């Protein structure tokens, strides 16, 4: 037993040392994950506020509503997205994707919705990533939102566009609604072609089902007011 004991002792201490290292490592990493989750939540909440703001739009207040939305969106970028940028270096960018993805998706949703209302176009991923460049430490690899999160955010955008279309129809802006309808159909069609190439696309598949419902809702709404409401809206304009 005298030869055995020392060996066991060192083994035990090796095990203890090893696990002490693992503990430190996991603690640090979990803390970082927590910070990223928190940042993501803040991004979500504040992006939702931007979306909410955009939905306030009506024929009369377009300019001011969009101006405020733009300001709010810029604040999300500079205050919250920047926190993400600081945390995500090296392999963490992909490792922590689940932790920040919901926030980034909501941010994409807000940014693309604002852009569509402002200029009627689809905000490109490259444009978004360009706005993020100044946030990064120039000495490090800059943070760039990945295609997957962009596409997932875009899928959610459709729901917001549906709400927007309903609002426009209520106010008689049928052409606007029809423009949204075309836009949404195009996005849906393009996504059907991209989806098989996405990593783990079950989330996206669910979103596509919801999306098709949104498209059909917009189309049905356009059908519902056509051509009767249209005349009313003309009468109103007159």
């Amino acid at each position, binding site marked *: 037993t005298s030869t055995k004991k020392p060996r066991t002792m060192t083994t035990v201490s*090796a095990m203890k040392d*090893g696990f002490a290292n693992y*503990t430190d490592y996991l603690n640090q990493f979990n803390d970082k994950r927590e910070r990223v989750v928190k940042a993501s939540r803040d991004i979500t909440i504040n992006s939702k506020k931007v979306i909410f703001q955009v939905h306030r739009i009506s024929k009369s207040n377009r300019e001011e509503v969009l101006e405020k939305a733009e300001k709010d969106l810029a604040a999300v970028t500079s205050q919250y997205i920047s926190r993400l940028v600081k945390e995500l270096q090296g392999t963490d960018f*992909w490792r922590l994707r689940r932790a920040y993805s919901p926030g980034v998706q909501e941010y994409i949703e807000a940014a693309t919705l604002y852009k*569509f209302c402002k200029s009627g*176009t689809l905000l490109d*991923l490259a444009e978004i990533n360009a706005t993020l460049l100044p946030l990064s430490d120039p000495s490090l690899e800059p943070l760039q939102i990945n*295609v997957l999160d962009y596409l997932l955010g875009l899928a959610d955008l459709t729901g917001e566009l549906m709400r927007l279309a309903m609002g426009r129809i209520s106010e008689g802006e049928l052409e606007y609604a029809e423009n949204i309808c075309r836009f949404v159909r195009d996005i849906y069609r393009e996504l059907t*072609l991209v989806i098989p*190439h996405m990593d783990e696309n079950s989330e996206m598949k669910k979103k596509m089902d919801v999306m098709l419902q949104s498209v059909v809702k917009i189309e049905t709404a356009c059908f519902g007011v056509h051509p009767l409401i249209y005349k009313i809206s003309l009468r109103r304009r007159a």
Partner: protein
Amino acid sequence: YSSSSVEKQFEGFRSTLEDSGKLRERIKAVAGEIESAARFMHSGLLLVHQSRPVPEVLERAKGQIEVLKGLYSNLAEILKECPGQYYRFHGEWRSETQTAVSLIVLLHWLETGDLLMHKETEAKLGLGSSEFGLDIEDYLTGVCFMSNELPRYVVNQVTAGDYDCPRKVLNFLTELHAAFRMLNLRNDLLRRKFDGMKYDLRKVEEVYYDVKIRGLTANGDPGVPRIV
């Protein structure tokens, strides 16, 4: 609003995603081979339950470690093409790696009675370069899987006449369990696997109890009167 600009943008997405899709396919293929090598190794190691001479069993299993090493080097090679994306594809080799770790750690324990540490396991798999290492949680999960084999091993060893085995395994598992308790685990797979280790411990305790109460301990523990 123009359809064509949307189309162009999506064209770009598609080609980017297709590229990483192809990479994933290659990774999957290697992961499949890892799974197959690990399964082969597992099948060999199972023989320890059958009272086959341990050294012979271990020798054959060790051969598979070299195969695994080669496969992980292939994997590392592929990942060099997409720096920083280790965790993007991690899911493809995760469970295979946990199994491989569990086998290597078990083999080492059978040989030495010691726990093979993370760095040592990494080394055995030829990993440990800065870009492609062994994820610590995968290592720990592998260790939990390894612990699942021990109750069965103890039962079969006692049946084969090694009455001191329960004590040794109990000491090892108790130590291991205590070490794991230091970790601050999230509510995930590793946590669940660790929770399962408690049952391994309890089961080994019971075998030890059965052996002791029957007075079967090897060196005739004086505190327990031998009956029969």
